């Protein structure tokens, strides 16, 4: 076991530790390189500055929110510099012996060539030079953990690449998770989702650190992500686009922001109380204390009056899809998106549970909060996320599927 791998925090290690663990995409490593929980615990515990990329000396010295937010599948804060001095044959990035995808260019290592025809070389764009097959890439299946939370993103069975992206950050006692789903009818959608997830998580943490309240920070992050995605397009005819949902899980409340049809759910661990007469079922969408503020890329967030968090008990959907009709989005991030209405909701769980953030690749198969809850009731967050992804794949895997599972622990009374 080598030093950089120790940086991967297991869920067990993260819970109750100083919540500093921003982690590496597990899929970029051979399974054999996955560390044992016991090995990672001391390292993560020793890192004093919350928000560091755990255990990587170089990153630790310079860690800021930007580094911390690079926990998605396309991480570049993963300490490849600490490797044994090998270099990627395509892009020259240094490569750690335990990796089978280059973290610089994302292409398979080992000079293994094409996954279909064997020794044939693969060109820098990822196509086999003999049979033309697009090679599987690092983002096809990515896993991430931070603090006690975990996320899994998978290409699915019917798409040739993963256009979803996720970011997971645990720092300063809060956990931030962002899921973005590239709009497949837009050009280069994977660049949009990747930029949005990374930027969203980074900006959210920065805003909190500069003193913003959770709702304002969530809006600021969505605006920042929208700006980043808009910058990828040259015109409305060349506009990479994606959805966005962020979850900020603190010690007393959960703050959700979104545009599009990626979702967040509350899956309370406590048994669902009997419905109170005169109120809606717990499993329906929550009333959204919505902001009507426009957070188009050019706009700064508008601070409105805070209606106070909505109480949460049993399993519930926390977001409302921005759709015109099934499958047709009414809101997205992209230079062609016009004015974006940022939805922000603030919730106060009345007991422990998890916040589940996901793309439609999951909820397309498993929509009801009550049906999702059993997956997270017993397993660790990583196992729960894996089980949910497996469920979506077993059900057909028609779309990319991304799941973040973020535990909520109320403060001790």
């Amino acid at each position, binding site marked *: 076991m080598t030093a950089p791998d120790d940086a991967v925090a297991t869920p067990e290690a993260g819970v109750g530790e100083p919540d500093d663990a921003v982690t590496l995409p597990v899929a970029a490593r051979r399974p054999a390189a996955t560390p044992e929980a016991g090995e990672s615990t001391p390292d993560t515990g020793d890192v004093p500055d919350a928000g560091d990329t755990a255990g990587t000396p170089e990153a630790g010295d310079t860690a800021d929110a930007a580094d911390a937010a690079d926990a998605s599948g396309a991480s570049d804060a993963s300490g490849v510099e600490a490797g044994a001095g090998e270099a990627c044959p395509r892009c020259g990035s240094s490569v750690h012996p335990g990796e089978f995808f280059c973290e610089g260019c994302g292409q398979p290592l080992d000079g293994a060539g094409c996954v279909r025809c064997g020794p044939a070389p693969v060109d820098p764009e990822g*196509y086999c030079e003999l049979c*033309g097959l697009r090679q599987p890439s690092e983002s096809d299946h990515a896993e991430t953990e931070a603090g006690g939370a975990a996320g899994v993103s998978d290409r699915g069975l019917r798409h040739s690449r993963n256009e979803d992206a996720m970011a997971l950050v645990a720092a300063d006692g809060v956990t931030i998770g962002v899921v973005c789903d590239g709009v497949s009818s837009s050009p280069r959608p994977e660049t949009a989702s990747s930029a949005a997830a990374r930027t969203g998580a980074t900006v959210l943490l920065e805003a909190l650190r500069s003193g913003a309240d959770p709702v304002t920070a969530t809006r600021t992050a969505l605006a920042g992500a929208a700006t980043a995605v808009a910058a990828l397009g040259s015109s409305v005819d060349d506009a990479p686009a994606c959805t966005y949902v962020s979850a900020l899980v603190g010690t007393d409340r959960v703050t959700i922001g979104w545009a599009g049809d990626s979702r967040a759910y509350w899956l309370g661990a406590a048994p669902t109380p009997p419905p109170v007469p005169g109120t809606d079922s717990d499993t329906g969408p929550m009333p959204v204390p919505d902001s009507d503020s426009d957070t188009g890329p050019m706009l700064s967030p508008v601070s409105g009056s805070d209606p106070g968090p909505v109480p949460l008990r049993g399993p519930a959907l926390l977001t409302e899809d921005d759709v015109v009709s099934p499958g047709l989005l009414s809101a997205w991030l992209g230079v062609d998106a016009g004015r974006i209405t940022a939805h922000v909701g603030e919730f106060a769980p009345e007991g422990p549970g998890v916040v589940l953030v996901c793309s439609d690749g999951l909820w397309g198969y498993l929509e009801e909060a009550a049906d999702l809850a059993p997956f997270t009731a017993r397993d660790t967050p990583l196992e729960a996320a894996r089980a949910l992804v497996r469920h979506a794949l077993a059900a057909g895997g028609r779309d990319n599927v991304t799941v973040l599972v973020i535990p909520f622990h109320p403060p001790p009374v």
Partner: protein
Amino acid sequence: MSDQPLFTLDIDQNKYLPTGGREIHAILTVEATGPAERVAADVEAAEVIIVDASGSMGGSKIVEARQAAQAAVETLRDGTYFAVVAGTHEATKIYPHRAGLVRADGRTRKDAAQALRGLRADGGTAIGKWLRLAAELLADHPRAVRHAILLTDGQNNESAEVFDAALAHCAGTFVCDSRGVGTDWAPAELRKVADALLGTSGFIRDARDLTDNFRMMIESMMGKAVAEVALRVWTPQHGRVKHLKQVSPTLSDLTGMRAAADPLTGDYPTGSWGAETRVYHLCVEVPAGAVGQEVRGAWVRLVRPDTGEILARGNVLAQWTDDLALSTRVSPGVAHYTGQAELFDLIQEGLGARAAGDLDTATARLGRARRLAEESGNDDTAKLLAKVVEIDSGTGTARLRRSVDKADEIALDTGSVRTARMRRDPGEPGSSDGRSPAG
């Protein structure tokens, strides 16, 4: 030369194939922009002007042809190498009097005009011989933008074998724009010249228009900044290029011009380029893949054969899906240019049937062609068709016009290679209120 036009390659396709699907269609739009005109002034150019001097050119036609050739010579930029050839059953260089080409300047232009005044109409027509002489003259200037103008008024007297051999001999050595004047020449013959030598063919209905037309051809040639550009197409193992056609501004099939670059890659010549846009329709066949797999079905590069420089590149992809909504969608570009190619076929079949006396087939084909031309926005071709076939506004029935001017028929035959550029549909994605599903 570091300064050259900027080439862009845009690829329009639907990459989704149904399970078992093997054929991929893509529209490649190649645009050259930037300092083409300024650059062209520094580019070596070589021009041969071929004027039909057969017996049928007698009278006013030879007078107009002399003036047109003279105007062409006057339009040449100083320093351009040029010669004037008189075409009969032989090919005779009438200027310069010494070997090879001569540089254009005030004196040589005047001498060329003097030589043209002596041009007499007498003898037969041997277009293959004329082109062979042009190739020989231009061979001394391998790095130049090499071009010929060919004017004829009659059918070629050479056998098809002799003519084809001459075209094959000349292919790739220069670009030739040819024009027919009068109504006794064969549009199909000049179309062969245009296809083989990557130029245009056209009809000069009124000999008085020759001068303007020649001047425009030279101006266009003087704007060429890159002598030769090739489309380099890689296809995967067990795949192949089914066809590669230029579809705009005119139709021209490049499929047979492939020169193998390596076992998986072929180069297709496109001739010389100024600031202009051309569109190609590429069809490739690949082995069927599994649902969810994506392959690069073709890797298209635009290359300068003289320097090996890659000017632009792009991928034609194939991805298999069991979602019929995805795989049955036809890209707007493919649909449009497939329609334009069909329009050409309908006109050629219709004119052929009409010439053979099969009026039912002629009526059906030309009637359909006229509707297709109108629907696809090809107004020029629609106007040419209207001279040959009329459509009853009440019943919509097509009827051949009883008496058709021979010149109208030739104009339609010649003009059928011209396609309409695709109109951008305002209802295209990007302007709609919603976006289709993510992921």
